[in-house]
């Protein structure tokens, strides 16, 4: 019995630590975008011919709606997992994944809008190139997020133990909300510099 207590305690401790790892990782990820932001500010201040100098594509608004909705769906999937409703959890996860993909497509769509306007990635005004870099780097994270969601879905479909499922869901939820907030940060940052 003692042994079980011991390993149980250790499991709780190690999960706490893993969750903490995620927070630290998110700080690291945020620092990348903070670096890009400060790079953008320094670069844009270097001349009057620099800056975004265009209206950001409408597709960004659709993206924002999609990712906020996906965050809400993720929250519902998480509460379902906590309540032990496996079916509902799977459904909500699928919705989250679908909205994530919508977000992805919408971002690519925004790029084509920019290209139509003649605003290319190769650009003597690198402030405009920065738009691509911000969104591209964020999309790379979205891909990672989608993989995490898929893994959750597969765990729920198998299904793995409730306890493990809930922990996985908790981690995935935090990460997905982070990606949502990160996009909102990027969007607001770009809007303020428009």
């Amino acid at each position, binding site marked *: *019995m*003692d*042994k079980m207590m011991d*390993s149980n305690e*250790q499991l709780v*401790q*190690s999960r*706490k*630590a*893993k969750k*903490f*790892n995620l927070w*630290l*990782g998110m*700080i*690291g*990820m945020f*620092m*990348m*975008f*903070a*670096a*890009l932001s*400060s*790079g953008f500010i*320094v*670069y844009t201040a*270097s*001349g009057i*011919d*620099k800056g975004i100098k265009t209206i950001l594509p409408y597709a960004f608004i659709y993206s924002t709606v999609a990712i906020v909705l996906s965050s809400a769906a993720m929250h519902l999937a998480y509460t379902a997992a906590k309540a032990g409703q496996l079916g509902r959890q799977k459904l909500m996860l699928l919705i989250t994944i679908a909205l994530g993909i919508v977000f992805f497509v919408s971002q690519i769509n925004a790029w084509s809008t920019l290209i139509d306007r003649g605003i290319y*990635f*190769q*650009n*003597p*005004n*690198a402030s405009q*190139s920065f738009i691509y*870099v911000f969104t591209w*780097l964020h999309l790379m994270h979205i891909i990672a997020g989608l993989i995490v969601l898929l893994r959750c879905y597969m765990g729920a479909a198998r299904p793995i133990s409730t306890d493990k499922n809930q922990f996985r869901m908790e981690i995935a939820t935090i990460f997905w909300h982070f990606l949502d907030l990160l996009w909102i940060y990027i969007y607001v940052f770009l809007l303020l510099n428009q």
Partner: protein
Amino acid sequence: MSTTVISHGAADHDSHDHHHHHETFLTKYVFSQDHKMIAKQFLITGIIMAVFAMVLSILFRIQIAWPDAEFPILEVFLGKWAEGGRIKPEFFLSLVTIHGTMMVFFVLTAGLSGTFSNLLIPYQIGARDMASPLMNMLSYWFFFVACIIMIASFFIESGPASAGWTIYPPLSAVPTAIAGSGLGMTLWLASMVLFIASQVLGGTNYVSTILNMRTKGMDLWKMPLTIWAFFLTAIVGLLSFPVLVSAVVLLIFDRSAGTSFYLSDLVVGGQILPNEGGSPILFQHLFWFLGHPEVYIVVMPALGLTSEVISTNARKPIFGYHAMVYSLVGITVLSFIVWGHHMFVTGMSPFLGGVFMITTLIIAVPSAVKAFNYIATLWRGNIRFTPAMMFAIGMVSFFVSGGVTGIFLGNAALDINLHDTYFVVAHFHLVMGSASIFGMLCGVYHWYPKMFGRMMDERLGYLHFWMTFIGAYLVFFPMHFMGIDGVPRRYYSFTDFPFMEKWVSVNILVTWAAIISALAQVAFLWNFFSSIWLGKRAPQNPWNSNTLEWTTPVEHFHGNWPGEIPEVHRWPYDYSKPGHDEDFIPQHIPYSQTMSSNHLHDFEGDEEAIRIQKAWNKENDREDVTFH
């Protein structure tokens, strides 16, 4: 229920579920998730990289000392890079670049933090392993692949990267600029991205483990200074490495996607490049936002290791434990707001330069606090000059003598003269190069028994120390004078210029000193590798040290302690406490077993404990000791 009373001797360690894994060669020695094995992997890889980078430095030192002489043997080994026995200018630049990159990142970052954070964090805070052993393993393998890629760049037609370890654009951003800007630079960048992944995985794990996995009683203010140093180092890494990722991402786009973040108005080989509007200074800002914290990532673990070793071997509590911690915190915070001192001559506004100058000079305060505390710890100590202690004291020496010149360089006005001269080379090779490598070697000698269960040979240790110590000063000290005279760094054969001709003799002295101290490393390598099998068997606590790692058995197994993890009752520096029969009291010994040496303030205001102690004192005719 009846199992609650078990004696946790070494015999019943099989009862723990950690030991049910069946280990194969592959899981034990290669893809190990055990922090001790990963530490050894980091250390041995780090040592191999150090030897590699040291050989590179000897090669370019030969060129600097004898620019006109021919060494046919070089051609045998280096082929067309040393045609006619003389190192080519392009290859010289590669040598300097890769020497710096490997030493800073692979040896003094991964080799130092990677080894000792992995080894000591779980041991000293009382944990069975890291928060995420898997991430820890990945951290090593990313690092390993990074090393392989960097070495691989020596085997390609156009040679390794040669834009300097700081890879400033445009040399690094225009693949056609010089030979090393092509595939060599691409490999450099690929290697560095993997390296950063490794550092972030490792660093996250260190922070999380320290904050979440400490044993009972191990509150933050009972942690050894090593742990404080690793903790703050990991935080610095976590905040600064991602910035380098961003800088590198933009650089990669400039190289291969035709963007103009860093490039503008360039003509290469008569061809006008299409890139326009970029700013190479932007790269410098982003680079040094990592680059400066990086030097503290390199030196802080060394400071932590030496704190522990100096206190143990002076048989005295570390002087000013809290001040030591606060100065590390101060260095951590300040390290992020001084990067501009690398850029005083980039046309920065004098006002901004002034700001960076002030923040830079303020770093001297916490650094000096540490230096004084080391000296005060040594003062009237009962010093045991073990090889580890020698290296620890050597580290303090380099930290002081190299730190002093930092005050010169931190001044914007003086830096205009000294920038990019040998003065800078001398400064950072002493303060972060030699100091950190001495911290690392001090750690190796001190914790070798813990890692391999054997002792290293002391005599070879002393030989290694004296030759390296004197050698390092002979190599780097003369460079100060060259720098003041205006000799620029990274030049292929500066003595061809009449006004620098006079430095030829000094160059020869420096190169001989470098060669001899490189040979001294053979003593270390022999000692290190042969002692794994031939060394004297180590006792459990060879240095009579207080920290928890010495309460584990000499034999390694996954989980560290056979029974329960010991509880911590006191700080780690109870050395030579008056009234105790031994000159050390390990952290897990409760105060109830040391009645004859307890101070009243040891109980941190616990009335009951103070009452019991006072009663005991009265009974045994002992005065109440307190410093309040």
